[in-house]
């Protein structure tokens, strides 16, 4: 399989994603500069983390109008796999491939740590190798990962099983009160319903704030992210 890692000015997790695919998994991977338009030869597109265009205006807002994005959207519309990690998730929301938006962390602080995630929804091409209700651990590193969507959209995501990852306690507890008064300590940014990752209707597009590409070898602290890439290769 051939992976395309899109590189925007300001991307900084592009090499991590490339390394995970090429060196850890052993599949073909190429960097694709944001001014390119041809994605015909690629099977999987990765929108990596970082600060595309310096996060100017809003995170992902300017990257969304890069020449490459039209091709990424076309790739996704054909049902081919697209994953947006961190800044890539922000870009996917800005361009409308995923609903909602990612706003400033409730704490106003950049949050960089390992978090626990509960795998909840099947149907994503990137997560076939996880077990429902499995608790995994991956790192986050973001200042704007606070997932927001209106009530109608949230209900739709819940009802259609599109919330793939939820922040949770080590024992898997993940509770959200609509009263909004208390954000659980295991929710690092204030995301509504403790949402850490969602998929599109057809399961070929996944957006997540945690970094699976940084959790592919035990030397970096854990390997729970590896199956994201294995899933999309082996189905």
């Amino acid at each position, binding site marked *: 399989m051939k992976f395309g890692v899109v590189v925007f000015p300001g991307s900084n997790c592009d090499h991590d994603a490339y390394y995970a695919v090429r060196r850890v998994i052993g599949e073909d991977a190429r960097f694709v500069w944001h001014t390119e338009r041809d994605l015909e030869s690629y099977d999987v597109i990765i929108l990596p983390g970082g600060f595309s265009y310096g996060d100017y*205006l809003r995170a992902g807002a300017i990257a969304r109008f890069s020449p490459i994005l039209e091709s990424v959207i076309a790739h996704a519309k054909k049902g081919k796999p697209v994953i947006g990690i961190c800044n890539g998730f922000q870009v996917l929301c800005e361009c409308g491939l995923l609903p909602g*938006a990612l706003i400033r*962390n409730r704490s106003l602080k950049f949050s960089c740590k390992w978090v626990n995630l509960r795998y909840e929804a099947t149907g994503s091409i990137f997560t076939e190798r996880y077990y429902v209700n499995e608790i995994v651990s991956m790192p986050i590193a973001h200042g704007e990962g606070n997932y927001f969507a209106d009530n109608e959209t949230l209900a739709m995501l819940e009802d259609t099983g599109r919330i793939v990852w939820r922040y949770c306690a080590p024992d898997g507890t993940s509770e959200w009160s609509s009263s909004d008064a208390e954000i659980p300590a295991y929710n690092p940014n204030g995301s509504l319903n403790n949402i850490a990752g969602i998929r599109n209707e057809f399961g070929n597009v996944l957006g997540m704030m945690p970094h699976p590409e940084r959790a592919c070898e035990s030397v970096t602290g854990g390997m729970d992210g590896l199956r994201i890439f294995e899933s999309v290769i082996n189905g």
Partner: protein
Amino acid sequence: MKFKVEVFVSTRKDVLDPQGKAVEHALANLGFSGMTEVRVGKYLTFFIDAENRESAMAGVDDACEKLLTNPIIEDYEINLTEA
């Protein structure tokens, strides 16, 4: 015609504005009383050449919808002044 454009971008009312909340707390801590519902937004200025005010407004509005703001989380107001 040339217009000076001002765009005021604010977080939508139903969206939490963590910056506004932090500023509000800081104001209260400093003894500024009675200052509530603080929202922190953005202010953009630029110029536009257009046939008339209506077409200038339409152009700016389109830019706001497509790029300058994210309608899911932000509201905006446009102010045009003949330059």
